[in-house]
């Protein structure tokens, strides 16, 4: 018989039956939950089974992923333009006399000599009519601020802009810009430039802060070849699908007699315990994610036959147009009887629009908060083209995407209305101000972001038509961080070669994540770590300490 104070392991004299002795380090997440359930928001937590504490705390904190006062849940759709979009040929600074053939002999977008550039107000939409070609207009489209023009391949952005639902944010980058695609994409996706300490994605962290991973199967969903870093992280599995129409089999032999047996066996196989090793948590999470996702997807029609969504407006030519051009018959055309002035997107874009449609369906038909996809091919080192060509073909995809999404969420809203959605484009950097010897452009610095949605504060005019708020940021005659013109101006201010930034992309994302998605400032400080650092000036603007560049802070777009 040993003394009770012995430091050695001894069974208690009067041991209660089935008593477990836990050491602190082995508290499971479930244990954690049971001890933490006395916290706030217990009602919301009652449905949780295996949710870590950090998630439960989030539930009590912000409005991310929660219904607002009107019962609406706010959502986000992202489109990543991979390869670096040449922003100077998107929103074009015609007010800067340095822009033109002398820097871009083969690729500059000309202004229409017959157009007045001093008109203030709405942007130009060159109507193709019922017989003209959709993209026949070969000049820049004045954006109504006397300074900027829009690439004519982006013409379908004009109706969205003129409705006040679209903001152009030019000169967007981050301090000490990396000119590597892969590093820079990673920084945009982690939301933490110039550090490798942050390894998970910005929108992944937003989803974790929403408290919904583990409770809802779908939180962040992408439709592309693989899950983007934007949605990757170690504590919860986001979903990526390359082709949602192939999500119908429940993972096991497709005969009636085989299904049940194999489904059970697969469930058991994924439940078996194994020694912990690198990547095993990842596999486990994604297997579980796959099994749950399969069930949800059974209820959504992703098929081509289900792609019947059409436009409600007469925007160009005749209505109605199919919104998601996935075949020739649905490209620049509608159900029978529509006069077709030409394709609205290149025929090579059908795969992408299938993915975009899937992203829209997921946001509209499920409780997913974030969905998105990407457009590849922006690395236009050679033969970039001007009014037409490779870059213009890519821009057509962007223009039609935003136009079509607006129509879709206005006309077919279910769980997500146009007012509940913000669309944002990302791209890792801009391209050199001067074209290279291959009629292309190389890696550079600041580029442009598009932010659209029913709640976006874009163009506003008063009763007389006078502009009270422009939707063009950082490319006007009187920007807070002025656009300096000339061969030593803004377009050359970074190391003499590149367009200098006036806004940090994180300020744009931060504004959207807090003021649209509903994160608290505290949450935002965790989602975008730079917000907690006053030297980065992300919220109110000022000089960014790392490279002493002045930025605007958050644009007034929501």
């Amino acid at each position: 018989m040993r003394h009770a104070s012995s430091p050695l392991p001894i069974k208690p004299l009067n041991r209660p039956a089935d008593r477990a002795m836990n050491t602190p380090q082995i508290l499971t997440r479930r244990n954690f939950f049971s001890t933490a359930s006395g916290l706030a928001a217990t009602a919301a937590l009652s449905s949780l089974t295996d949710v870590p504490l950090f998630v439960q705390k989030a539930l009590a904190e912000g409005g991310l992923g929660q219904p607002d006062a009107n019962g609406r849940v706010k959502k986000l759709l992202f489109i990543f333009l991979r390869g670096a979009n040449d922003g100077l040929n998107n929103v074009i600074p015609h007010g800067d006399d340095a822009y033109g053939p002398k820097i871009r002999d083969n690729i500059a977008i000309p202004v229409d000599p017959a157009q007045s550039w001093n008109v203030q107000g709405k942007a130009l939409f060159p109507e193709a009519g019922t017989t003209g070609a959709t993209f026949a207009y070969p000049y820049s489209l004045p954006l109504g601020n006397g300074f900027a023009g829009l690439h004519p391949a982006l013409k379908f952005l004009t109706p969205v802009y003129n409705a006040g639902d679209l903001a152009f944010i030019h000169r967007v980058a981050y301090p000490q810009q990396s000119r590597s695609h892969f590093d820079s994409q990673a920084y945009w996706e982690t939301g933490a430039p110039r550090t490798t300490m942050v390894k998970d994605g910005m929108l992944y962290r937003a989803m974790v802060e929403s408290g919904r991973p583990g409770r809802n199967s779908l939180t962040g969903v992408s439709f592309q070849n693989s899950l983007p870093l934007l949605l990757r992280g170690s504590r919860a599995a986001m979903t990526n699908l390359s082709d949602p129409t192939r999500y119908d089999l429940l993972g096991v032999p497709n005969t009636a007699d085989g299904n049940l047996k194999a489904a059970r066996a697969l469930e058991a196989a994924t439940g078996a315990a194994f020694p912990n090793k690198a990547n095993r948590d990842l596999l486990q999470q994604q297997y579980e994610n796959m099994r749950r996702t399969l069930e949800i997807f059974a209820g959504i029609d992703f098929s081509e036959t289900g792609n019947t969504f059409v436009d409600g407006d007469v925007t160009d030519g005749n209505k109605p147009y199919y919104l998601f051009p996935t075949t020739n018959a649905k490209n620049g055309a509608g159900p029978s009887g529509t006069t077709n002035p030409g394709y609205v997107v290149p025929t090579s874009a059908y795969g992408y629009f299938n993915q975009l449609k899937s992203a829209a369906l997921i946001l509209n038909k499920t409780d997913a908060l974030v969905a998105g996809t990407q457009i590849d091919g922006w690395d236009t080192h050679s033969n970039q083209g001007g009014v037409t060509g490779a870059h213009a073909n890519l821009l057509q995809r962007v223009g039609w995407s935003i136009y079509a999404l607006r129509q879709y969420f206005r006309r077919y809203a279910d769980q997500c209305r146009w007012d509940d959605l913000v669309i944002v484009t990302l791209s890792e950097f801009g391209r050199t101000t001067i074209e290279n010897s291959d009629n292309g452009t190389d890696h550079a610095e600041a580029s442009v972001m598009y932010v659209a949605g029913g709640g976006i504060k874009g163009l506003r005019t008063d009763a007389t038509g006078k502009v009270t708020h422009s939707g063009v940021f950082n490319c006007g005659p009187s920007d807070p961080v002025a656009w300096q013109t000339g061969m030593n101006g803004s377009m050359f201010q970074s190391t003499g070669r590149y367009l200098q930034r006036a806004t940090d992309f994180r300020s744009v994302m931060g504004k959207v994540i807090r003021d649209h998605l509903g994160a608290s400032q505290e949450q935002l400080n965790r989602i975008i770590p730079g917000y907690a650092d006053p030297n980065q000036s992300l919220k109110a603007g000022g000089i960014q300490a790392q490279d002493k560049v002045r930025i605007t802070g958050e644009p007034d777009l929501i």
Partner: protein
Amino acid sequence: MNSLNLRWMLWMALGLVRVGAETPDLLSLAWTNGRPILEFRLVPSASEYRVRSSASPGVAGPLLGGSHRGGRWTAEAPSVGDSAFYRLEALILSNETVRASTLLNRIAYGPTPDELDRLATLGTDAYIEEQLAPEKIIENLDEAPDTGPVWRKISITGTGSSSKLYVYLSGAGDAYLDEFRLVAGTADNGSAPNLLANGDFEQPLAAANWTTTTNTANSARTTDFVHGGNASFHLVQTAAGSTGTDSLVQTTATALSASTTYTLSFWYLTRPSNLQLTVRLSGSGIATTVPLQGNAESPLPYYARLQEGSATIGDLRAWHVLHAVQSRRQLAQVFQQFLENHFVTEYSKGLTYFDERAGLPNAWSGPESTRQEFNENLRWRRAFLNPQCTFHDLLKISAESPAMIIYLDTVLSRGDYNTTTKTNRIANENYARELCELFAFGVDNGYDQGDIEQISRAWTGWTVELLSTNQAANPFAPRTTVLINSGLTNATERNSVTNLAGLWSFRYRTDRHDPRVKWAFYERDAKGGILTNSPKTVPARFGPPWAGRSYGLKLDNGATTNGIQDGYQILRHMADQPFTQEYISVKLCRLLVHDEFHHGYDFTDAETSPEESLVHACMMAWENPPKGGPKGQMRDVLRVILKSDLFRQSNTAAAKVKTPLEFAASTLRAFRAAKPDGAFTAATDAPNLVASGGLLDRAGRMRLFDRAEPDGYAEDAGGWVSAGTLSERLRYVQSLALAGAGLATGTGVRSNPDSLGSSRIDPSAVIALRLANGAQRSAEAVTDCLLGLLFPSEGAANLREYRALGIGFLNTANNGTTPSDFSALAPGTKDYDSRVRGLVALLLSSPRFQEQ
């Protein structure tokens, strides 16, 4: 009881660890009905967990009876007395067993049953040395086994559904046939009467024996190739055959009976071809379709087309995948894929260039771009056969490859003086940037934007041109002027590239080169001016022997053809810098060990992880070749990694996730055993694996030889594991394991459930090769056999749950609930095969088989 006590117990147990045993982390101790229950962390490769109990600490005590499931051990009897000490021990697999598994998963495309056996005898050290010297491994996958024509005999049985025999090919083409015999019965001993007339084609064709149709009208008896006697038959078709109206036909003199079994045999000459030969009776009582090339899996026909320049990108991919599955030089194969992915180029960009820029017809552009991809891979493959192959050799092959010159835009880059703008043209930076960032130094490692601008000018003038065939290796040769058809009268046609004889090759153009001096890797002043007296120096973090070395490079080769030296000097200079050594070593460690190696270690500080040490050891072997010779010998670096302690650890086994290519090859290799007759128990449908819509495409868009982004496909798991990609892997497994019984198509237990190709495995045949007759009927033995083949690095104790699952699966009817004794199923029956295939599909679908 508190945590301190448990740790104390653990500490005591550590003192008793012996070879082959480890002490797992204890998590908790509890009692149910008086029986002690220990919860613990599972230990990798554990073959047994056992518990000892004693009344006092420091005494090992006797083993306690009990059982475990997952990380939970339960004693079989209530504990005796009021206090006791418990010690948990794990016996783990031998180091050699674990290392063999890791080797077969990392320097090979997964274990095969035969390789597992071979390594157990050979030993892992010997295997490493064998694989590091691929030139000594005999391999003839790309060559015919002998030089003469190879005749193959086919023999089949079936019913006499008709008296009409049809012989035809699946498309336009020809074949040689001989010695047809048709006899009654299930075998042909050679003496039974031949029911076919003139089956040996010794007599002229006549209405009484063989008749041709319009489609086969060009066929004839021949003496060119003969299997028996003096003549054979040369079947020539203008289009695909399918029935009596478009094939070679014979109606037997004696009517056949549908209720009788007959045996048909014949010989045909195998040859490189995609065509299928079908021989059948009308109504398909007796029917067979065989690949004209004989072995459907041979890379030979693909290689023949690649050599000839007529191959498509699909041919190149199929050839590559077949080698991954079959090659005995597995390390060389893995390394070649590493190089192809490291020095990535994009087939589609080459195609577009040849089509739109070079003026080739569209139909020629694909094969030409394929040829360029093939050539660089062939050069890497040959370079690695040299025992002293260096990284510089490999880098140079990449730089000189027209595929690369086109891919990163060097082909159009110019730096010559522009008389209009009165400046030199601005060189394209694309290749210079990726050379620094992705091919040699690693991102932000020893270079900056200014260096890229300087280096980009060095590559101006590197173009791709059609050079005459005997000048293809001469970058100074002028464009070819040799006409294919000099008789063309139309000047445009005569001078078009389609009428020029030659090969598209690397050509250096002085008239596009920027001849000015370039200063790479020099410091700059505040205004960006180059400080020509201040070359950059290697940062202190590299430590000796590198830290502080100057590595500036001044290029001053002028405007003559000497300007070509700019590029070569850069390659020579960068190939063995510590930045390159570090970057490539890290990538190879990630390929072979695990994902968590990083760039930018401080090699001088006190904190040293095993990963950092291994990278450093690689760099030292690179810098100071152990056997002398040039720096950067790849085999030295690979040997350091494979012989490291990190590589041996049981934690390293199964710590990586397979890429789609590795997954596809490993599923086939896992069930690819040689049968006594030399045939294999798995068949690779390479063209469909790599086709658009095939597994590699769908499970993460791994389009071999055609990646758009210059960073190559991901080596780490994150890029390959998501709900969508996993579901595609599972669909493929269904198609692979369940689609057909045996290896034949179309006779399966289930129809092909998907479009993921017709690769096949025959797990029942593998079991028959490895288990005695009695054991083949044992659910336990069959499950153990499969687990051993699929998870050789994992011990029995950790596989216990999979084992219970497998045994349960085999002993359950297909409805998933009714018990059904596996031992009641006879091997060789459809029910037996179906049950085994179901379990195999399940195991291949499990998370564990995604690991390598």
